[in-house]
């Protein structure tokens, strides 16, 4: 094994290769908090995928038996394990279907945000100059908008549907990723192994894809994981304010939105969906935080 490495060679990137992925997974499972997060995520994914078979009742059926004699929601009991909502629908089934909504939006919205953010960050960082000035000033501009208000205005412009909600969240959430990737790409672009590639005439796409991207992967994975948590919270909040996922399609946020007037007499209608939102956001935060420790100990900071 050589002690010194030729600085013109592309150094091996951390976090690439199959065995490396297995090492990271092992590290995650050894940390109690991250392992807890992984278990929650696995349970949620299982619930979302097998939702049609797990749901004990029809989540859309407004059952007459599902209401009390006074016409109010039923507390948790034998037939309805988590009780019913104000329209007499089974809460457990609606929460299970809501898992699908949360995860779909979490993955789609965050996926778009990651692609957009990383794309803008890499482009600005690699090309520098005017490209960077324009792109990063635009990023600063987006950062100055209050995220929730911007999302609300966008949601008001476009009629809310699942895809629009995902797009709106992505539009608000890509900014942070682009800042992180921009800073990293800037410093990488000045390293010798990239300069050498430029000098020997490799095309920008080859350099970006083959030499830069593997080194940025750690940050993309870390901030991509933490971003899912932000996305889940933003979707829940938008749905709670009535501008996110629209009823009767259940989402954890709009279940609370629909039932909040009943919270003093039927607290389970806020407690159970609230608990699920916290659990899912917490799980991705715990895993993301552990990944940051494992993949790159120098990546520390508030955002």
């Amino acid at each position, binding site marked *: 094994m050589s002690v010194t490495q030729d600085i013109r060679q592309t150094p091996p990137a951390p976090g690439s290769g199959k065995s490396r992925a297995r090492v990271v997974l092992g590290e995650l499972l050894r940390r109690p*908090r991250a392992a807890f997060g992984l278990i929650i995520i696995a349970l949620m994914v299982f619930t979302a995928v097998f939702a049609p078979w797990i749901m004990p009742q029809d989540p859309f059926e407004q059952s007459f038996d599902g209401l009390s004699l006074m016409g109010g929601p039923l507390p948790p009991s034998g037939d309805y394990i988590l009780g019913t909502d104000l329209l007499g629908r089974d809460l457990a089934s609606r929460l299970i279907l809501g898992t699908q909504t949360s995860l779909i939006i979490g993955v789609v919205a965050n996926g778009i945000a990651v692609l957009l953010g990383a794309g803008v960050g890499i482009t600005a960082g690699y090309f520098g100059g005017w490209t960077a000035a324009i792109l990063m*000033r*635009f990023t*600063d*501009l987006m*950062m*100055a*908008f*209050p*995220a*929730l*208000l*911007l999302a*609300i*205005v*966008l949601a*008001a*412009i476009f009629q809310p549907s699942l895809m629009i909600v995902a797009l709106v969240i992505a539009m608000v959430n890509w900014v942070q990723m682009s800042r992180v990737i921009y800073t990293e790409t800037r410093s990488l672009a000045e390293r010798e192994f990239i300069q050498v590639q430029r000098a020997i005439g490799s095309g920008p796409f080859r350099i970006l894809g083959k030499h830069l991207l593997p080194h940025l992967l750690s940050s993309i994975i870390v901030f991509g994981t933490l971003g899912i*948590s932000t996305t889940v*919270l933003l979707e*829940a*909040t938008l749905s*709670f*304010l*009535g*501008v996110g996922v629209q009823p009767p399609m259940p989402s954890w*946020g709009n279940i*609370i939105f629909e039932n*909040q007037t009943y*919270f*003093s007499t039927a*607290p389970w209608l*806020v*407690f159970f969906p*609230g608990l699920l*939102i*916290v659990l899912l*956001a*917490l799980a991705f*935060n*715990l895993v993301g*935080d552990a990944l940051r420790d494992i993949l790159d100990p120098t990546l*520390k900071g*508030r955002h």
Partner: protein
Amino acid sequence: MTSYLIRRLFESALILLGITFVTFILLYLLPADPARQIAGRSATAETVANIRDQLGLNDPLFVQYWRYLTGLLQGDMGRSYLQRAEVSSLIAARLPASLMLMVSAIVTELIIGLTIGVVAALRRNRPADHGLMIFSFVAISAPQFVIGILLLYVFAVQLGWFPIGGYGTPAHFVLPSITLGLLGAGWYSRMMRSSMIEVLNQDLVRTARAKGLSKMRIVTRHVMPNAILPIIAMIGIDIGLFMSGIVVVESVFGWPGIGQLAWQAIQRVDIPVIMGVTMVSATAIVIGNLLADLVAPLIDPRIKTK
């Protein structure tokens, strides 16, 4: 420092200009016709056309933008579609309540966050530390509307310690301030913990211990002042978190501030009001970031101000 100040002020002004442009474009893109909104459902096409003409909605885009911008500079943010009032006076009437809530939330998050951070750092890697850090993870993972409704249920409905909602007495401040401040408390406790640990490992602590100072005195006189400094610089950035948070917190607690104003405007698609609150919030965020950038080099001279 002076040139840095001037450059940052110039950048902030540019960002605000950009925000007016984006806000204007969003307003322009909205499918709702302002003239139709003002005229009402039963108005004839002719009336609507007249109002369109009066409002100058038939003018070219840049003419309209220029009018919007010069209006903004004079504090004119248009009129609410649904309330017969200027947007600027609606916001001015509600701003004090929001500002008081934010100040109260800053105090709350600092008290909770710093206390947890200090205790966790002093009990590093012991059960208390693990427990407190799990609490701070939950604090940053819990949506504010869930925290708000649950606090209301437990402390207002069940225990009756605090009012269910509204505004006026100090008791009204407690639950909304905790709800708004908990997210920041989660971040601050983690930052304070690592900041404390960093200072605890420095030579000044060893010197103080060698001098024979008590542990209590070392922590309160030497470690905490040094550890708090980097955190003070972050308070400006919190304004951004708060500006999103007040929409939720004020609507849950019926707090008569600009967040509730925005939420009511959203329900009724009162666009000038939504835009007005967005502009005010964005301005507050820009000012907050500017303050954070200006304070940081004063606290830590290693930060370059070139």
